[in-house]
């Protein structure tokens, strides 16, 4: 079943077409990768899928229904979560609180309840804390739970972003270059993590430059070049596509 469908998606920045006439369909439970040279429009696409940018044209359907969300928090409420290529950690909180903040959508409480700390809220907070700890364990950060976020090493922050995004229980999780800047053993860890997500039944959109990672975990690959779709299909098919080799892989082999 199609979880997300885009039709004629486009984004212009003062005449520069960052994304143009993009059609694609992400199936439920897939690891859907988006690759392409620098400036191909990958991050712009993620920003369109999370409401950070408003499309110049085109439409989105989530689980068969037109996506009516406008502000990013409404995209989140619709079930789309993401991580950021350039880390967007809440550095003014502990690692655990970062993940707890990620549960915001499931922890609605009124101002008065928050001010008075009602017993009901106290219980909800305990549950939230426990869930956040479990998520930190899942991404391998249990040891850092109570550490201030700004004391964590770079590789751990990348995982913290994933734990925080998972806390919202998204139907669709967008990962923006989760392996960028990591060493080979850390990348293997991310590889395992993404496979763990797939096992949890989470649909993943992966934007990544590391071809080994992409080819290993993806069910479907979309190749962008200058904001347009260059090719798409199973990883093996894309890898053998002469246009892709010329635009992207060919250049990378020199």
């Amino acid at each position, binding site marked *: 079943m199609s979880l997300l469908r885009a039709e004629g998606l486009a984004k212009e920045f003062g005449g520069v077409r960052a994304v143009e006439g993009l059609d694609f369909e992400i199936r439920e439970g897939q690891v859907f990768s988006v690759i392409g040279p620098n400036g191909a429009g990958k991050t712009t696409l993620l920003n369109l899928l999370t409401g950070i940018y408003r499309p110049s044209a085109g439409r989105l359907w989530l689980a068969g229904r037109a996506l009516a969300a406008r*502000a990013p928090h409404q995209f989140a409420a619709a079930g789309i979560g993401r991580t950021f290529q350039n880390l967007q950690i809440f550095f003014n909180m502990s690692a655990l609180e970062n993940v707890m903040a990620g549960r915001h959508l499931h922890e609605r409480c009124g101002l008065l309840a928050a001010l008075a700390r009602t017993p009901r809220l106290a219980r909800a907070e305990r549950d939230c804390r426990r869930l956040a700890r479990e998520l930190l364990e899942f991404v391998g950060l249990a040891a850092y739970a109570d550490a201030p976020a700004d004391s964590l090493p770079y590789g751990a922050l990348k995982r913290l972003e994933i734990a925080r995004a998972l806390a919202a229980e998204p139907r669709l999780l967008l990962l923006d270059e989760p392996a960028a800047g990591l060493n080979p053993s850390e990348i293997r860890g991310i590889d395992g993590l993404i496979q763990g997500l797939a096992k949890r039944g989470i649909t993943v959109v992966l934007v990544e430059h590391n071809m080994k990672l992409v080819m290993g975990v993806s069910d479907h690959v979309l190749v962008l070049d200058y904001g347009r779709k260059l090719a798409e299909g199973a990883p093996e098919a894309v890898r053998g596509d002469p246009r892709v080799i010329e635009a992207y892989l060919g250049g990378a082999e020199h």
Partner: protein
Amino acid sequence: MRGLLALAAVVLLAPLALANNYHYEIAILVGLNAIVCVGLNLLIGYAGQVSLGHAGFFGIGAYGSAILAARYGWPPLASLAAATAAAALLAWVVGRPILRLRGHYLAMATLGLGIIISIVITTEDRYTGGPDGMSVPPLALAGFALSGERAWYWLVGALLVATVWLSLNLIDSPVGRALRALHGSEVAAEVAGIDSARHKLLAFVLSAAIAGLAGALTAHYAGFITPGKATFLHSIELVVMVVFGGMASTFGAVVGAAVLTALPQLLTVFKEYEMVVFGGVMMLTMIFMPTGLVPTLAMLARRRR
């Protein structure tokens, strides 16, 4: 919790060190300013939104309650509630467009708002008495007028402890985490489902209501008010108290308010140079302890252990 108990103990034991009515008066002013700063810290320290106009809300509370009680004969408790609500309402109406602005623009907009309120208070002398000020009836509870330094001390002390308790609860709740999150990264907060505009507005309205309440209490306590407390300079004083004590630290706000309220009162030599002293304190804080007094001391204590 330990911090709250310590604060309650300080409030309970302080009278042992207060020798005369003048000392009580300073303690009451410290308490009232601390209440404003705890509220302002929710906005500046936790939500990361700068306001240079909070003396305006303080002024609305003070003059609102004074005018309703003195000119329209409202019972002071009702005028106090109405003036607090008026400050909150104004913050809500003005905050919706203003809080779309970020950083310097938000600071400039709140600065303008504060100045407008201050000018209105100074010029509408039919109601406010203009620059000469106006006298305010005492606060009455069930027919008994609240008077005397000691009674006011206990009222303000209890309110301060309550405000700190509410603030600590809020910060450690989903709402408080949302405020801190949008300070840490607004885009990440939004993507986590946090309605940043709504939460900024909430912090703004809440801090304005607290400033309004403290303003109204100050007016009834002093029995006489002048536009001085509603001016831009007082807004700056409030911000300096928060920054000096420690942003994103509730007890920092209390300590900042205590030190910077008591010092100029006790060292009368500062009186004429008050603004110079405040400016100097601000600069030295930024250079030597950018996180503020209480967080810096807490960090040093952790390191020694």
